[in-house]
Every structure is written in structure tokens, then in C-alpha cells.
């Protein structure tokens, strides 16, 4: 009996906490239907006066391009980057987890060192490098680094995961006639699916929300991804149509949320098992 009462109290508390956490999100959705004045005047959810055209108006954007362009741009930027990150990170991680080669420890330390390096420090050298390659104002600035496994966090994560898979599996695969490449493809990648999903989701959400890098590398409005498009009309002097902005923010959140829910099963598994020794 006592346990049950405790349970009920716990549920009530959790529900309340849940509401508090979700409230800003609900507020965002509700605000996209309010008038500009009402958004900041009250914190209630139900609009006094419904504004129904904020989605249609917001989609039109503020100048030459509509949100169709911005959404397509974002997918053009994010999807290849995610795929490239997964492919490159898993091959580098495989190398570190399973092979012996000279300077392995030093190299791995270097990889971890780049993990510690804040992005702000390397932004100027990177900018100059990309400029000399002639990549500025193209998505190559995101695709190519991803292809060369520059996201050391993912390498680290995958190395930890691969170390958790018993080596005996590799050895039995060798007996069955596998070479090192087929071991990776046939044995390790299927087993490492949860970790790969985690890499994919992390990278998808990070690139989707990234503001600073796209701000620095992308100039043309025709190539703007959503992160830049959303801030295009927020200025210090002009009147901001907040309801349209809120409406577009709601739509912008949809793809990452969908990805997260569909891949959640693998994602949680990936986080939970990374670092466990087999």
C-alpha cells in the first residue's frame, strides 16, 4: 500500500516536471497562432485572437527565396555530411580499435587532443584554408571535413564501442576466410549499429542546428540553410513578425524530432552500451 502511494506521488511529480519541461515547446507552437502583441503580453497558451496565416506568410520568407529553398539547402548540407561522417569515422575507429601500427598511441592522443580544441580557435585557420581551396560559399566546407573524419568525438565513441566487441569474433571470421575489410563490413558494422545510429543522430541534429559555421562559410542567401534563414529577419530596429518566425521555428524542429523518434531505440542502446567491455 505504502509503495503504491509513493508511486502515485512520484508520478504526479514527474508529470508536473514533464509539463514544465515541455511548456516552452507548447508555448512556441501556440505563439505561432498569436498576434505579435499577445506573444509577449501573456504566457497563456490559448490565443485570444487566432492568426492562421502565419505559416503561409512565414513560408514566403523575406526576400527572394522561400523556405522551400532553405529546407532543401539544409538537407543538401546535412545529409551528405552525416553519411560522410559515419563512413569516415567508422573506418578510422576500426583502425584504432583493431590494428597495431607505429605511433598508434601518439596518433590517438592527437585525435583526442582535437576533441578538446574549441571550434572558435581553429575557425580562422580553417577559413583561410578553405578560401585557398576555393571552397567558400559552398557546402564542400562541410562535406569534405566530414569525409576526412574530423569529428573526433565520433571516432572516440566508435573506438570505445568497437573495443567492447570481442576480438574472438574477428578471429573466427578470419578462420572462415574473411579479410580485414569484410570483417568490418560483415561482422563489426552490423554489431555496431546502435553506435552508428548515435553518430548519425548526433551529427544530424548538430549540423541542422549549427549557426556559427554556416554563418562564416556561406555567403549567398540562395545557399542559406534554415539556421541562417530564421535569423534573417530578426534585427535590432525593424518590426519582427514573431508569429511567422515562431511558425517557421516549429517547422524547422520537425525533421530532427522525427529522426530522433524513429531512431530512438538504437540511439538509447548506443549510448547505454558504449564503453562497456565485452
Amino acid at each position, binding site marked *: 500500500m505504502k509503495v503504491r502511494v509513493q508511486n502515485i506521488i512520484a508520478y504526479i511529480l514527474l508529470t508536473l516536471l514533464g509539463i514544465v519541461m515541455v511548456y516552452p515547446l507548447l508555448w512556441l507552437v501556440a505563439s505561432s497562432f498569436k498576434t*505579435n*502583441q*499577445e506573444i*509577449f*503580453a*501573456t504566457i497563456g497558451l490559448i490565443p485570444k485572437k487566432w492568426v492562421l496565416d502565419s505559416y503561409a506568410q512565414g513560408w514566403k520568407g*523575406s*526576400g*527572394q527565396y522561400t523556405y522551400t529553398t532553405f529546407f532543401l539547402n539544409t538537407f543538401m548540407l546535412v545529409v551528405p555530411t552525416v553519411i560522410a561522417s559515419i563512413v569516415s569515422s567508422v573506418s578510422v575507429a576500426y583502425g584504432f580499435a583493431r590494428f597495431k601500427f607505429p605511433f598508434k598511441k601518439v596518433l590517438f592522443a592527437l585525435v583526442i587532443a582535437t576533441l578538446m580544441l574549441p571550434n572558435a580557435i581553429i*575557425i*580562422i585557420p580553417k*577559413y*583561410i584554408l578553405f*578560401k*585557398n*581551396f*576555393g571552397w*567558400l560559399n559552398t557546402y564542400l566546407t562541410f562535406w569534405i571535413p566530414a569525409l576526412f573524419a574530423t569529428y573526433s568525438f565520433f571516432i572516440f565513441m566508435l573506438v570505445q564501442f568497437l573495443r567492447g566487441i570481442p576480438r574472438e569474433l574477428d578471429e573466427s571470421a578470419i578462420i572462415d576466410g574473411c579479410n580485414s575489410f569484410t570483417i568490418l563490413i560483415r561482422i563489426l558494422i552490423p554489431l555496431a549499429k546502435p553506435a552508428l545510429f548515435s553518430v548519425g543522430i548526433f551529427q544530424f541534429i548538430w549540423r541542422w542546428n549549427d*549557426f*556559427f559555421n554556416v*554563418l*562564416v562559410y556561406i*555567403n*549567398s*542567401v540562395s545557399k*542559406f540553410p534554415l539556421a*541562417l534563414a530564421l*535569423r*534573417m*529577419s*530578426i*534585427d*535590432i*530596429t*525593424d*518590426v*519582427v*513578425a514573431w508569429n511567422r518566425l515562431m511558425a517557421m521555428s516549429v517547422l524547422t524542429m520537425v525533421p530532427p524530432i522525427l529522426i530522433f523518434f524513429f531512431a530512438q531505440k538504437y540511439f538509447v542502446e548506443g549510448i547505454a552500451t558504449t564503453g562497456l567491455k565485452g
Partner: protein
Amino acid sequence: MKRAMRLISTLCIISILATLFIGCAKEAPKTGTDSTQQAAADNKDKTDKKDAAPKNVTMRFSWWGGDSRHKATLAAIEAYTKKNPHVKIEAEYGGFDGYFQKLTTQLAGGTAPDIMQVDQPWLPSLTSQGDLFVDINTLKEIDLSAFDKKFLDSQLTIGGKLQGLPTGLIGITMFYNKTAFEKFGISADTQWTFDNLIEIGKQVHEKDKNIYLLNLDINKYDWIMKAIVKEKTGEQWVKDDYTLGFDKAILVEGLTWIKKAVDSGAVQPFEEMILYDKKAETNPKWVNGELLMNINWPSSFERFTESVANKDAKWDVTAFPISKDAKKSGVITRAAQVMCINKNSANISEAAKFINWMFNDDEAILILEDVRGVPATEKARKMLTDSKKLDERIVRATEVAIKNSGDPENGPTNDPELLEIDRDIIQKVGYGQLTPEKAADELIQRYTEKLAELKAKK
């Protein structure tokens, strides 16, 4: 045998990679802008121009702003390129957030656009890093006769070079809710001083506990504090030689104003205000009409009045306070933004022509209206007032502000690191953590340290 094969294949891969990178490096100048070569070509082009058809050029033009500015500027670009089909202008626009970071990265990397919108307070620190912008005085394509020469000389000329042209003139003004003023019996003709702001604010708050006279955020406190000090001294806040333009006694007066304003109820308590710092128009009390006045640039007038829920309230603009015994006015006036031409641009002459058109052509003036503030040329002001495109209240307020304007602020005064110290101290006084005297000591001490550092860097 096997080992040899492996060695050869490794060598092959390395050489392939190497050529790949060298190939990229060689290609870069073609895609990027090779300034010297193209500039030379452009110069040659200038001399041949009379007999040859104009060469096709593509220019980049970057600005920040909101929706209305984007729309108007894009329309202007379209109108210009229709008339000058050999010119193509790529627009690069966005919000204010991050614009400065991006601009400095581009200037450092040599990839800045041909035409840039720059904020005036950035000019001293940008130009101290190198010769970045074309001296407008040297360009025969631009007709400067419409501009106020004194203003150009005092505000936009650095090191004898005119760095850019002002898109508009702005001076600090005060917006007030006329309807509410009538309700509280405050005369619209009140000659505001820093003292009666507090007196009247106190009376208003005593009549209705929910209402405060002023809607201020920390930047506005900073303006007022500095204005009080500068009016007493008649000097710059920080002098050109990096010494303080005031002593402790005067600074205490400025800081005491903040304490009095908070204690008397003329302004909202800091705990509530700070949530809306830098976005005072989203303060719910402002939206609900419970704050009666805002101190701001005239260009924010629409933004602030639009956000108030009560649409029947009438609004007007009045002059920023000046003390009666002021040695010099503390009103800051400056260029709304500055249009600069990139010194490394390959198309300086074409860029200059476009800028000249933007500022002087009738068609351009009517397209651009007041999206960059009240225009800086009298011709444009007159055209727009005649066609009712300008809000008469804002024009009047701007003209008053310019008439009462103090000296333009110098570079050291606007240093962002010093502004951070101000923000800190103002909050300590506003929250009642420090008395104005103690706060003055701390500000002077921290300023002295920072100024020594800034001077050494120079």
C-alpha cells in the same frame, strides 16, 4: 615481392593525393578574387571605357536588417541592374546577430564583399587593423554635394580618409505614450531634464503602483550616466589619449541618478528589467502599456510602438534630456549605418556608381524610403516627407537631436571591453550592491587597468 608491391601502391596513393591538393591550391585564385590582377584589368578597363562597351561585372553587397529593409534593398538592386544590365549584384543579407563576426572574418581572410554596410562604432577598431575601405573623397563617381560636410568630416573621416557614407542620421530621442501622459497630467511640452525625469516618474509611480515612467535597459542607463557626466565636464568620456574624461565626484553624480531612478520608482526594478535587456520592447509591462517612455534611436520607433497591445494609444517623440547648465550636450548623434567600399575590390568604380545611385537618384530614394533610418541627405528627406513616406514625428525628433548634438564619441569611448565594465557597474548600483561612491571607485580602478592595456596594444 608482395612488400614491394605494397610500397609502390602506397607511393602511388601519396602522389595522387599530393597532386589533388596542389591542383586545388592552383585553382583557388580563379574562383576566389585575385585582387591585384583583376584590379589592374579594371584600371585598364577604365581608360578604355569610352570606346568599349562596359564590361560585365558581378559585385557582392552585404547588409543586415529586418524584412522591410531586405525587401526594399532587393527592389533597389533590381531597379539598378535593369538600368545597367552589365552589372550583377549579389545580395548577402541577414539579421544583425553575427554580422560583425562574419565581417571581421571576411576582412581578415580577404573575402569581404565589394560593398559593405558597417556600423559606425566599428569603424575606429576596424580601420586600426589596416586600410580596409576606399577613401570616398578620391572617387569621382560619387557626388558628395548633398551631404553635410561637417558631419562627414567629424564622424566618418578617420586618418584623413572618408571611410564610407552615412545611410541615415540618428540621434537619441525619447518615445512617449501621449494618451497615458494625458491621463497622468504630464504636459507633452515638458522640457525634460535628468532631474524631472525622476520627479515625474516618482509621482506617476505613487499614483499607480503598477506603472513606471521609463522603460530602460542597461544600454540606456549607460547613455544617461555618460550624458550626465559629459555635460558636466564638456569632455569625451575617455579622451583620445586613453585617459579618463571625468573625475570621481562627477561620476558619482551619474551613478547616483541610477540609484535615485530605481529608488523613486521612476523605472522598473532591475530584477524585472534585466529579463528584457537589449529587447526592451518585449517587456510585458511595455506591451501592456504600463511603461510610458522609452529612450532610443528614432529608427526603433515603429518597433517599440508596434509591440504595444493597445492600438489606440497615441505616440510621440521628444528630445533627450539636457541639463540647464550643460557645458556641452550629451546627446549622441551618429550615422545610422555606413556604406563602405572594399579597398581590395576589383570593381571599385562600379561599386561607387551604384552607391552614388543609391544615395542621390530620385528613383532609389523612393524605393529605399526610410529602411535605413532618416536619410542623411536633405534632398532625400524632403522628397520623402513630401510624399508622406517619412514619419513626421521621427524627422522632427531627429532634427532636434542633431541640432542639440554633442561631440561625436571617439574610438576609445566606444571600446566594447569598456562598455562591459559599464554594464557591470550599472548592475551593481541598480541592484543596490554598491553605493554610487564605491561603484565609482571600482569603475575608475577597472577603467585605469583596461585603458593601460588598450593603450599598450595600440
